[in-house]
């Protein structure tokens, strides 16, 4: 199959299903076909790279030169960057064919894709349910074959939770593994880009292409990038998997627990041992995250002021009016809520009680993981507390929505790699197993997921495309 044929097939799939799913904001068919033909001629000449000719959709948070980049916001509805994000240019250099840009929660703030200015994304397994967020468009597009590979970003679970809810594999690398340059910032100390694909194997391939030190991102790690794909090793003999008591407590949904335990027993059969561990400060993760992330966001989003680029209100009467209306009209409710929370947490008189305290707790949570990893190689748990929920179910209750990321947030606070791999269905809806690795040890969690995908076919389950198109 040529890249052009594959690209045509993807574009056709987008054409047929996107109206129902709303997973993709911008499609670039001509550009995609042109790259596909270039890829085919490179393949013919034997000049292929690791991803030559592979169609791909980027989350609309990655800046793409000459292609509108909205970040799911009215604020950037018309924004066309003059530059590519490092991830975009690296993957381009490896030969990918970019099909377009995926829908997402506005500025990556959300766990259901309901905050996008461009409308909600439907979960392909049940169109009345959310796909998860914030990389919900990417997950839904991937699950329906609009592209075999998509990118996402994960600040508090935004790759792993939608991967779980849509039945795909998603990897959040270690903080610093992938350059943040050209990714529209939400919370700089937590944001990390990663791949989502049908298999751990494909994620390994994509991560190798995305990762690496970038002089343009001071927080990118100056470490060699292994070839995660060729290093994949399904032999789990001796692998120690830690099960945090704090995750497997009475709060865990029994159906989810059953699926997770089934997946873990597969890994046990493959030679891994399961060990109970403690992450004693886990219950502070949500509170900590919802101080730090909004605080950083309140500053990161200050540049959207209607002065230089982005949305500007009509006929501002003065500077104050320009600021207030451009931001009130340009940002949605959840984004405004987080800016307000973050501004408050940093305010004089509250800084020590909120931001500073949160930073301290963040270090304690990180230390919990460090200690746990003295006993185990991988930490396992659910990716999300349940399966996809109906639209509107949690929208009026921000705290209930924030609980969606209860198992993923701490991983961002500690800067660790984490992935979600399918672990079967509950009433026809997918559940994900989360595997958390040591810093910069993406390989071990990829290996474990890979083995699970050899031994089971959960990752092969697909939503019924015919019900979607009709």
């Amino acid at each position, binding site marked *: 199959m040529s890249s052009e044929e594959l690209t045509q097939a993807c574009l056709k799939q987008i054409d047929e299903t996107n109206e129902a799913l709303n997973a993709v904001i911008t499609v670039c068919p001509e550009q995609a076909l042109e790259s596909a033909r270039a890829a085919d001629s490179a393949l013919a000449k034997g000049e292929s790279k690791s991803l030559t000719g592979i169609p791909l959709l980027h989350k609309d948070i990655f*800046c793409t030169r000459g292609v509108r*980049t909205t*970040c799911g916001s009215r604020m*950037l509805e018309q*924004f066309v*960057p*003059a*530059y590519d*994000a490092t991830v975009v240019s690296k993957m381009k250099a490896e030969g990918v064919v970019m099909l377009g840009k995926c829908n997402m929660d506005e500025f990556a703030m959300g766990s259901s894709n309901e905050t996008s200015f461009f409308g909600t994304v439907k979960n392909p397994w049940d169109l009345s349910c959310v796909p998860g967020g914030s990389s919900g468009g990417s997950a839904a597009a991937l699950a329906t074959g609009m592209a075999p590979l998509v990118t996402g970003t994960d600040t508090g679970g935004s790759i792993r939770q939608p991967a779980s809810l849509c039945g795909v594999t998603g990897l959040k690398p270690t903080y610093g593994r992938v350059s*943040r*340059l*050209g*990714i*529209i*910032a939400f*919370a*700089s*100390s937590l944001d990390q880009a990663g791949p989502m694909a049908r298999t751990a194997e494909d994620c390994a391939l994509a991560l190798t292409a995305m990762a690496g030190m970038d*002089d*343009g*991102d*001071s*927080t990118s790690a100056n470490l060699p990038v292994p070839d995660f794909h060729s290093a994949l090793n399904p032999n789990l003999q001796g692998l120690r998997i830690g099960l945090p008591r704090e995750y497997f407590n009475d709060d865990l949904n029994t159906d989810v627990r059953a699926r997770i335990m089934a997946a873990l027993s597969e890994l046990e059969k493959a030679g891994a041992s399961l060990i109970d561990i403690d992450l004693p400060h886990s219950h502070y993760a949500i509170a900590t995250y919802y101080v730090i992330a909004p*605080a*950083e966001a*309140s*500053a990161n*989003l*200050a*540049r959207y*002021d209607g*002065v*230089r*680029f982005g949305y500007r209100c009509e006929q501002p009467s003065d*500077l104050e009016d320009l*600021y207030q209306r451009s931001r009130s009209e340009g940002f949605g409710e959840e984004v405004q809520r987080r800016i307000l929370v973050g*501004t408050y947490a*940093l*305010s*004089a008189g509250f*800084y020590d009680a909120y*931001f500073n305290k949160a930073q301290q707790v963040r270090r304690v949570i990180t230390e919990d993981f460090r200690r746990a990893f003295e006993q185990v190689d991988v930490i396992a748990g659910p990716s999300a507390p349940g399966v996809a929920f109906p639209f509107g179910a949690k929208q009026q209750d921000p705290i209930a929505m924030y609980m969606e990321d209860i198992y993923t947030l701490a991983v961002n606070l500690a800067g660790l790699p984490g992935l979600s791999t399918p672990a079967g269905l509950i009433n026809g809806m997918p559940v994900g197993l989360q595997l958390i690795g040591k810093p910069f040890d993406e390989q071990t969690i990829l290996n474990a997921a890979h083995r699970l995908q050899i031994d089971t076919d959960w990752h092969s389950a697909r939503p019924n495309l015919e019900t979607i198109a009709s």
Partner: protein
Amino acid sequence: MNWEIVMGLEVHLQLATQSKIFSGSSAQFGAAPNEQADAVDLGMPGMLPVLNEQAVRYAVKFGLGIGARIGDRSVFDRKNYFYPDLPKGYQVSQFFSPIVCEGMFEVPLEDGTLFPIRITRAHLEEDAGKSVHDVFQQETGIDLNRAGTPLLEIVTEPDFRSAEQAVAYLKALHSLVTYLGISDGNMSEGSMRCDINVSLREKGSQTLGTRTEIKNVNSFRFVERAIHSEYERQADILESGGTITQETRLYDAEQNVTRSMRSKEVANDYRYFPEPDLLPIVIDSDYIEAVRATLPELPGAKRTRFTSDYGLSDYDAALIVPHHAMADYFEAVVQFCKAPKPAANWILGDLSGALNRNEMGIEESPITPERLAGLIVRIEDGTLSSKLAKQVFDAMWEGEGDTDEIVATRGLKQVSDSAALEAMVDEVIANSPDQVTQYLAADEAKRKKLSGFFVGQVMKASKGQANPQMLNALLLEKLNNQS
């Protein structure tokens, strides 16, 4: 009542780096609006800062120059506020952990004494852009060329008790940073901007009064005048039983008054927090020593050396040393002529005068140090009188060649040939019998006065080229032998 003024200074020093502190754009002054602003400077989505090592090195240089402690781990923070010329909506600065910690700076006063000023801290930050109000009708333009230019904000303790001390500090600071080569220190172009915190208290009181902050004063002279006018204003309020409002004021040079800008009570809460896009700056002793090795001789050490090695007065040293180029020029002249005192006199006198008249810096002087030294050599060896030397200097300024060439072409050589001088003296004496009689009749004191006539006549005859010392000796001898 007797009031004491108490002041602390904050200087924003623009560092003379090639590029900006967090982007690759040029940091040079004077480009067309927004031509030196890239995507980082514009705060475009997804852009990230990358720290310019040269800015760090310059800050460390400054710290070492004032003997300050260098923070081994300094951290950038975001200072949040909205303003149209602040592209990101925050300024990257250092609030909690500055790069330069406490230090001491010895400021030379005019009387040659040293006045110690405690430096609280100096931190790195990025400059904002400029709002342009006078180009577009009804609209404000934004020029982001300056956005991201590296600044070092240098903060002192409230150690100043007079405007003179404040100006002396600023001049010494200017001298130091130009020696270090970290800034051009140009106040009129905004490379050195000064905020002055001013409060008054009763003489003898130990507690500080309420202060006002005078922002952005842009010349040494305005600093002095702004302080005097703010002192008067605060003293008037206090004398009449009023209280000072803590606020920011601007100096209006035309009216010579300070005006209220904004009250601190309603000032922004800047919500500082650590900048997550940048790593802490970790500075180890190897780095510090490597920077220390690049430090030039600093003004303090140079003043000491100029007085002890060259025998210059404190006064001369204090005039020459602050200007790095002038000090270098001086040393170059001395190297050629081995006559430090005359070198200092010529540089501070005729040369500075000519440079000032022509609005030139000493680096642009048409007279090279070697040529000035050549002139001094010819004075010292008696070839030229000081009067002739001034003619040679003027000719040299006009580019007529070196001293010997000018002496030759203009025939300016001093007549030191005793036979030739004797002949001229004899002729004048022979032609002036009345004056000779008068001279001989006079007492010792009057004779001295009367001898001037004969000197003048010989000088006239020699077209000013007679060696004055030889002429005097010869004339006295001849006159006294007339009886």
